[in-house]
């Protein structure tokens, strides 16, 4: 016989209560007031007839009634004939997710996480199966559930404990939502074998910081039978602060760099410093800017440009407890330079000639330098995006060989500006522009007889800076002498500007890989006002940009973001100095840590800065209710032993409900009480008769 509520058997102790109370002491019922106790002494209670048990039958009846009542309350049942074995123990299928995002680099969070994993694995019971995943911006299965054939569960757990020791936190952002969905898919797919029969459980070991991305969970309804247990680890640091460079639209290398410093909520520190970081050498006497940022706020501070020749690779924040996000990498912009080959017959110091103004306009400037030479080498073709741009300016007549060389140069990717200085030169150089046919030279006889620029193509990059009404006025530029060309019907080039008297003024033609630009005039003061106008220098600058466009480095790339590759980039130098080959020809995807990545091509190096995701710096803890708000079931599946005990209890309840032994016991109790009442009444009457007028004393023995 078993009992559903065996604790009620304690009620059996009530049997002894009346006996014990009766035998221990029979305290007088009433109190008697007396004038003085000065002549009295306490009397010991006497053992009288009242102290002896003389109604044995009554006592037995009442004790039996109490016993049966206690038995009835403890809900007895017989399991001998119905105690069939229950279903086999079903273990849990546990997926262990460990956060390896950058924020786990704080303090001893990772050690805590490893210890937590060990505790979870060691707390599993025999029928349970467990798999280990790590996640940051993506989910990585580390050890899958055992298939039962090659690896046993115990071996699997040993592997998990071994592998978690080898894991390290990475630099990527935290996307817990995506990771949970992916693990859910693993459960649903073949990896979650017999998924429907087992109890599934996800255990997430994470710091659950505010920057955790949970948006993926908004898309789906989380299954109710897949509870998630959060094992959060917390750091004892006193807050975190981070920084990032605010990009400026028209920054100049001499301008201060704007840096936004953000201090996390609840941070204790509020005084920080920002300084430059250099690849090889320490900062030295570089400026160190103090900044005060209260907790939960951000400030923008202007950091003066670094001094010296070496380009800084980033800015650094000092003064907070968590250094993992204290450096913002900035790709050093290489100094641009141009090599201009001038093929002319004039001297650079003659103010009436072309070269003089070319030298004056193309001088070194902050951020780039220009070198003008007269030696032409047809192999000196700059690749697009090369740090050194090559421009050939031709103004004099050249021989046939040179013409061929120039043509080869252009078709090979070179850039040539043709500015014929004479009718002869115009005629000589005409083959360089196949789309034009030279007609004649037009010279004016008076100052008032001039040609103006018209139909300027402001959409072309060369004229794009003059697009505004205030800047697009070219009517002040008079051309007295010009070369008149006719456009061939099948010309592939197009005029960027025309003369109001007809004919192209500036012709652009793409030949092969290169480009040809022809000015149907000169900037000599006697020919036109172009060199003396305010448009001349911007036009030549635009020309240089056209030759070698400014290298636009992708800004704001985060760890894990793919970097678009440029033509010819086959190797990458990682921030730690490792040289790796690029396998893809479109993207480089292995940006696994923040720093400066050097993309190498045949003749140039392109630095790209990869930074930490901004969300990783938001280190204050999220409330775990946030997951519940998104519909995720939080909680733990009880271990199989608990489940088994629960099932056993359920079976016992069912058996007891079928047998209902307590009803018979209660019925017996009622019968016993009836007999007891009848017997007690009979004894009382008998006692009254025998004792006459005395007070009956038949009750004390058992009641």
């Amino acid at each position: 016989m078993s009992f559903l509520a065996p604790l009620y058997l304690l009620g059996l102790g009530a049997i002894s209560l009346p006996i014990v109370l009766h035998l221990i002491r029979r305290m007088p019922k009433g109190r008697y007031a007396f004038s003085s106790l000065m002549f009295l002494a306490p009397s010991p209670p006497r053992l009288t007839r009242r102290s002896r048990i003389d109604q044995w039958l009554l006592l037995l009846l009442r004790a039996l009634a109490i016993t049966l009542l206690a038995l009835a309350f403890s809900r007895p049942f017989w399991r001998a004939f119905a105690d069939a074995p229950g279903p086999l123990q079903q273990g849990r299928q546990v997926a262990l997710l460990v956060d390896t995002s950058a924020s786990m680099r704080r303090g001893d969070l990772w050690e805590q996480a490893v210890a937590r994993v060990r505790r979870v694995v060691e707390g599993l019971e025999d029928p349970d199966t467990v798999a280990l995943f790590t996640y940051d911006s993506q989910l990585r299965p580390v050890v899958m559930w055992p298939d039962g054939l090659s690896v046993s569960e115990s071996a699997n757990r040993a592997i998990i404990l071994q592998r978690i020791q080898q894991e390290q936190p990475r630099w990527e952002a935290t996307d817990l939502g995506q990771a949970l969905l992916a693990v859910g898919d693993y459960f649903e797919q073949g990896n979650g074998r017999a998924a429907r029969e087992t109890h599934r459980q996800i255990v997430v070991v994470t710091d659950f910081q505010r920057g955790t991305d949970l948006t993926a969970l908004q898309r789906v309804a989380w299954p109710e039978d897949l509870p998630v247990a959060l094992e959060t680890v917390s750091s004892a640091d006193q807050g975190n602060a981070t920084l990032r460079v605010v990009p400026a639209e028209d920054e100049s290398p001499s301008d201060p760099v704007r840096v936004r410093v953000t201090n996390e909520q609840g941070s204790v520190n509020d005084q920080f410093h920002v300084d430059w970081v250099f690849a090889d050498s320490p900062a030295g006497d570089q400026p160190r800017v103090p900044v005060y940022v209260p907790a939960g706020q951000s400030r923008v501070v202007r950091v003066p440009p670094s001094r010296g020749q070496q380009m800084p690779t980033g800015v650094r924040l000092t003064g907070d407890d968590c250094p993992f996000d204290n450096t913002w990498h900035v790709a050093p912009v290489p100094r641009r330079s141009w090599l201009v080959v001038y093929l002319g017959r004039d001297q650079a110091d003659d103010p009436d000639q072309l070269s003089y103004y070319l030298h004056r306009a193309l001088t070194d400037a902050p951020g780039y330098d220009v070198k003008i030479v007269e030696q032409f080498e047809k192999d000196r073709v700059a690749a697009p995006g090369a740090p050194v741009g090559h421009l050939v300016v031709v103004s004099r007549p050249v021989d046939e060989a040179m013409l061929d060389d120039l043509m080869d140069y252009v078709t090979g990717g070179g850039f040539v500006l043709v500015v014929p200085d004479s009718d002869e030169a115009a005629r000589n150089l005409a083959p360089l522009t196949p789309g034009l046919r030279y007609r004649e030279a037009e010279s004016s006889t008076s100052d008032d007889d001039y040609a103006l620029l018209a139909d300027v193509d402001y959409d072309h990059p060369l004229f794009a800076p003059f697009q505004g009404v205030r800047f697009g006025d070219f009517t002040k530029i008079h051309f007295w002498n010009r070369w008149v060309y006719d456009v061939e019907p099948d010309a592939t080039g197009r005029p960027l500007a025309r003369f109001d008297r007809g004919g192209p003024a500036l012709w652009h033609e793409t030949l092969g890989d290169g480009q040809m630009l022809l000015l149907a005039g000169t900037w000599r003061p006697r020919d036109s006002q172009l060199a003396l106008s305010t448009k001349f220098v911007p036009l030549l600058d635009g020309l240089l940009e056209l030759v070698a466009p400014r290298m636009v480095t992708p800004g704001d790339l985060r760890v894990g973001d793919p970097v678009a590759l440029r033509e010819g980039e086959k190797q990458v130098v990682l921030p730690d100095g490792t040289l790796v080959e690029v396998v893809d020809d479109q993207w480089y995807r292995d940006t696994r840590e923040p720093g400066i990545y050097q993309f190498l091509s045949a003749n140039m190096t392109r630095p790209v800065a990869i930074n930490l995701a901004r969300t990783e710096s938001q280190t204050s803890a999220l409330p775990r209710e946030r997951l519940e708000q998104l519909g995720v079931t939080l909680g733990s599946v009880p271990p199989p032993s608990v489940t088994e005990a629960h099932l056993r209890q359920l079976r016992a309840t069912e058996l007891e409900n079928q047998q209902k032994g307590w009803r018979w016991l209660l019925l017996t109790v009622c019968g016993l009480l009836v007999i007891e009442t009848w017997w007690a009444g009979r004894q009382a009457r008998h006692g009254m008769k025998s004792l006459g007028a005395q007070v009956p004393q038949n009750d004390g023995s058992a009641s």
Partner: protein
Amino acid sequence: MSNSSSEIGSDRPSPSPERVAGIDPLTLMRIRNLEFRAKVVVDGFLSGLHRSPHHGFSVEFSEYRQYSPGDDPRYLDWRLFARTDRYYVKRFQDETNLRCYLLVDLSRSMAYGSLPYDKAEYARTAAATLAYFLSLQRDAVGLVTFDERIRDYLPARYRAGHIHRLMLALEQSPTGKATRLEIPLEQVASTVRKRGLVILLSDCLAQLDSLETHLGYLRSQGHEVILLRVLDPAEISLSIPHPALVEDLETGRTFYVDPDSARAEYEQRFREHASRLRRICLAWDVDFASLVTDQPLDMSLFELLHARWRRGRKMVSRKPSGVSAAGGRR
């Protein structure tokens, strides 16, 4: 009264047969008005007194003495001078105004009673009776009620309304938590300078050590002292009906008492206490009487007064006092 015979009761006069019954105390206590109750009792024993051959307290001639210069000429006996032609002054026994103080114990132990009335009621009635009786004789009566301290103090007076105030003071119920017999005795000794009669009504259920001292002090001041011990018959024989938790009325202390087993020891200790009290009274020439509450009050008082009268006669003869006015009473 039979088993607690007092000094007085031992040589009581044999009253007339109709007086033996006395007034039933149960009937007497049903009279609510204390003054009327006292009057009933006084009427009862006065009739007994009048029937007695001994005629009570009056100014009595003592002796003649030859006049010597300095004597008050008002006391010269002019008749004797007329007959003898000599000057004599008359001397009298001083039985003038009696100053009587009734000291009534109203502690909680006096609230005990196995009869329909308690000891306090009985003592109150006795005190009221004595006061009324004395006031009839134009004696000044004072009252001190006490428990562990003095509760009421009325100086001895003889004037209209005084007896009524005294009755009102007596009607207070017992409240005190202890009995300190020496307190009223000290009070009387310190405030009453003239000699008088002090009647202490108490159950005397208290320690007797200090009582002896204070009785002696009073006696040495010349006061007559009568100690009337009021007892309930259940106190004398420990008549507790069944074993019970017995609670001390004064202290509230309780313990279990089985009367059958405790009775013998109780009675022995009670007797020892009573005999010690009696010895103290004897030693200081204090009249002592036990008033048991189931005895008729008029009988008890009659015996008391009768015995006192007899002792008073002896006392007068033994203790001559000063000269008083020829009229005896003022």
